[in-house]
């Protein structure tokens, strides 16, 4: 690093020195261009961009420094291309936002200018400087200078590299056969790739299968599921696994290997329908029916509803007592079936695992304590099971229904700070439906501000016009549910009526529960898909790459990413399918050339790198009479776990060599970047 300082004044003096310095000198020959971005004020409001430019313009090898309003704008990109050609630049630094946003943008620019894209280094002076230190402009400017200097140090030593080309399996695993997953599967299959659709439950359709009329087309959930299922089954490119879970994953983008465990149904495929019904009738075990949110019971041999897809019941082996009653009446029962394990190879994984409805805590608005307090999903099933013109629950006629909104969403004390997006509309739609179907229904909506965004507003209007009553409170004074003289009474301080305390005697209290991430997140943990602040799967960038995750090759869709209604889930499923398809379409992928390199001179095969490597990328090989480690380029993922374990420091990681890292460190502690004011 000392050179850096002395070189500042005079370059040509640095000629005859030691071999390692010779190498440095080589690096110093680079003609480097530095662009410092204002980001339209995002950076320049806190960082003195011009000072940064001045501070680095005399750095060794820097031939060009510019500030720009938007480095990423087309006009600046063009200018960069021209500069690189005109100034014969062979190293470029852009100091702007996080590399997560625009590293690829600028690599593409350098590539267009005929420069190797790995001779480009990105300096993050927005997320990690101007925004993080908006309270300290001087400190921010100093930090920005050092970061740009360390980027310059790195680019000096950068090498021209070629991406590693690998074959990509032209197959995609879609996990979750709800509506989003099925839609994505169909779309992918139609585009011409092999699709493995993996569903954990025995039946497809996910949450939508549980709903009746869907907002706003009035198509029922079953009908929509049927439509998508038919589409899925009609396509030869889709293989559907039900009762299946991914239990192991290896490999990475282009070549994921998944191990899928398929739980048996204990019923033979070719079976007699009449006998199966007898078997269901014969089963003596009764357990709460999860499909109906536990408001009804089902047998241990079950389907969710008649004509559920696939149209073959399953035996819930955890609850089955093996009493054998079913076997007596049905010849298709087969307890000898064993779980199967399948290995599949895919180029990309599309996660569409959906959501769980929020489960209120015991005593939350009387839930679990007062017997006529139910959740919205339960209410939908209650409405489903009521025939005729009377709405009944537990044998009692229902007239006054109190709906309490934002249960589990927008929590003041709880963890869920987010709005669940779909519940206002879903509840109002269900309330209208109930009012239309049943006699003498009065709906009372205890809300915190109705959020029927967009066209859904017309439902709010319709329900108001039908006489539904809306009562509103703020987050900090929620309504109360109490039993008074054997009657369930809901009361609220209504801000629409000058904070007057109002009450309703409710025959049924419906807790409008929001969406929460799936309780069982084993697939998320297995695939290492990061979660956001709301604990749902997180995309890379909401606007730039809204369906991709930081794990290359894994895309996300549907409500697993955050609350969404059906249309929004479908839209995201299609968008995610397009991304997954783009990954595998050409059958070939260009991967980052970041891999480990072993110096044969220094290596004395000890096997520690082999132990450390999670991918078995190292093999011992005889070279010039000694055993050294050799890296299998197509297997190495460039994680670097081998780096610290090598006793002879024989391993270097591309782009992160000792030389590069140490020179960056040097630049970061270098002299005070701001010249003392004269």
């Amino acid at each position, binding site marked *: 690093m000392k050179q850096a300082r002395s070189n500042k004044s005079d370059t040509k003096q640095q000629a005859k020195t030691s071999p390692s310095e010779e190498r440095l000198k080589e690096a110093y020959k680079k003609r480097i261009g530095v662009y410092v971005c204002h980001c339209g004020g995002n950076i320049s409001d806190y960082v003195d961009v011009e000072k940064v430019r001045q501070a680095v313009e005399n750095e060794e090898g820097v031939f060009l420094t510019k500030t720009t309003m938007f480095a990423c704008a087309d006009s600046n990109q063009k200018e960069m291309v021209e500069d690189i050609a005109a100034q014969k630049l062979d190293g470029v630094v852009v100091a702007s936002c996080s590399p997560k946003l625009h590293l690829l943008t600028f690599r593409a620019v350098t590539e267009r200018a005929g420069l190797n894209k790995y001779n480009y280094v990105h300096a993050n002076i927005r997320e990690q400087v101007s*925004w993080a230190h908006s309270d300290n402009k001087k400190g921010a400017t100093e930090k920005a200078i050092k970061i740009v200097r360390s980027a310059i140090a790195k680019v000096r030593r950068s090498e021209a590299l070629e991406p590693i080309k690998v074959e990509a399996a032209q197959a995609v695993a879609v996990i979750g056969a709800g509506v989003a997953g099925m839609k994505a599967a169909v779309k992918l299959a139609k585009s011409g790739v092999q699709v493995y659709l993996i569903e954990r439950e025995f039946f497809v359709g996910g949450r939508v299968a549980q709903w009746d009329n869907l907002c706003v087309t009035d198509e029922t959930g079953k009908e929509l599921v049927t439509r998508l299922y038919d589409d899925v089954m009609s396509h030869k490119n889709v293989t559907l696994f039900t009762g299946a879970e991914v239990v192991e994953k290896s490999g990475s983008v282009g070549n994921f290997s998944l191990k899928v465990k398929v739980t048996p149904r204990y019923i033979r495929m070719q079976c007699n329908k009449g006998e199966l019904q007898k078997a269901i009738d014969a089963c003596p075990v009764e357990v709460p029916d999860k499909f109906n949110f536990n408001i009804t019971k089902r047998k241990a041999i079950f389907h969710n509803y008649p004509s559920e897809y696939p149209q073959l019941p399953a035996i819930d082996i955890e609850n089955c007592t093996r009493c054998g009653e079913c076997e007596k009446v049905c010849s298709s029962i087969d307890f000898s079936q064993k779980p199967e394990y399948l290995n599949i190879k895919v180029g990309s994984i599309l996660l569409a695992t959906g959501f769980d409805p929020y489960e209120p805590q015991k005593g939350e608005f009387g839930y679990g304590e007062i017997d006529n307090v139910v959740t919205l999903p339960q209410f939908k099933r209650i409405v489903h099971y009521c025939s005729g013109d009377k709405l009944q629950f537990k044998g009692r006629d229902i007239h006054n229904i109190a709906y309490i909104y934002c249960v589990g969403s927008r929590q003041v004390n709880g963890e869920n700070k987010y709005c669940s997006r779909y519940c206002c509309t879903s509840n109002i739609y269900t309330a209208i439906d109930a009012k239309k179907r049943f006699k003498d229904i009065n709906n009372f909506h205890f809300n915190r501000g109705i959020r029927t965004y967009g066209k859904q507003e017309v439902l709010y209007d319709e329900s108001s016009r039908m006489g539904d009553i809306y009562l509103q409170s703020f987050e900090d004074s929620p309504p109360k549910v109490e039993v008074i003289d054997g009657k369930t009474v809901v009361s609220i301080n209504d801000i629409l009526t000058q904070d007057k305390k109002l009450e309703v005697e409710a025959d049924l209290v419906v807790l409008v529960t929001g969406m929460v991430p799936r309780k069982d997140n084993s697939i998320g943990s297995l695939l290492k898909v*990061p979660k956001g602040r709301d604990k749902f799967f997180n995309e890379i960038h909401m606007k730039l790459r809204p369906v991709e995750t*930081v794990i290359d090759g894994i895309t996300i869709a549907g409500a697993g990413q955050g609350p969404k209604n059906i249309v929004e889930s479908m839209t995201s499923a299609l968008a995610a399918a397009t991304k997954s398809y783009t990954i595998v379409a050409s059958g070939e992928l260009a991967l980052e050339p970041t891999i480990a390199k072993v110096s044969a001179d220094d290596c004395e095969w000890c096997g520690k790198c082999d132990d450390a490597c999670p991918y078995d990328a190292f093999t011992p090989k005889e070279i010039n009479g000694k055993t050294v480690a050799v890296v299998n380029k197509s297997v190495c993922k460039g994680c670097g776990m081998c780096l610290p374990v090598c006793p002879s420091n024989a391993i270097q990681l591309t782009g992160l060599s000792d030389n590069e890292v140490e020179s960056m460190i040097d630049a970061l502690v270098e002299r005070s970047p701001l010249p003392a004011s004269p």
Partner: protein
Amino acid sequence: MNSGKVNNSVKILVFSTEKISDPAIDMAGLLKLHYPPTVYTITVPCSSAVKPRWIMHAFEQGFDGVFIAADGTDCPYGESCTEKTGKLVQETQDKMKELGMEPARLKMAAICSICSEPFVKHVKSFVETLNAKES
């Protein structure tokens, strides 16, 4: 250089990981959670890729502290990451002791992809510890 002003200018080098802790540090900026500007990051693919010699180099060159923002269990390269990172930190600290350096100048904590607030808390308390050590 090391003798520089004491007032809150302890220099910290953070090794953060591209996919896990980097997003969290970026988000700290997005949320305008402030921390001292003398905290610098170098991005590595996985926290278990940090070579002890880099850490030692940082101390030699004048960094007061090195913080490894580890992937924890979120590491996309494998479960072993945490353990390996822990081991390399341990070894480095041992070496530091040998050289008569304060091992507390090297710190490690798991920073998940949304751990912006924990990150800021960690670096702030790290700065305090280092300040206390220095004075």
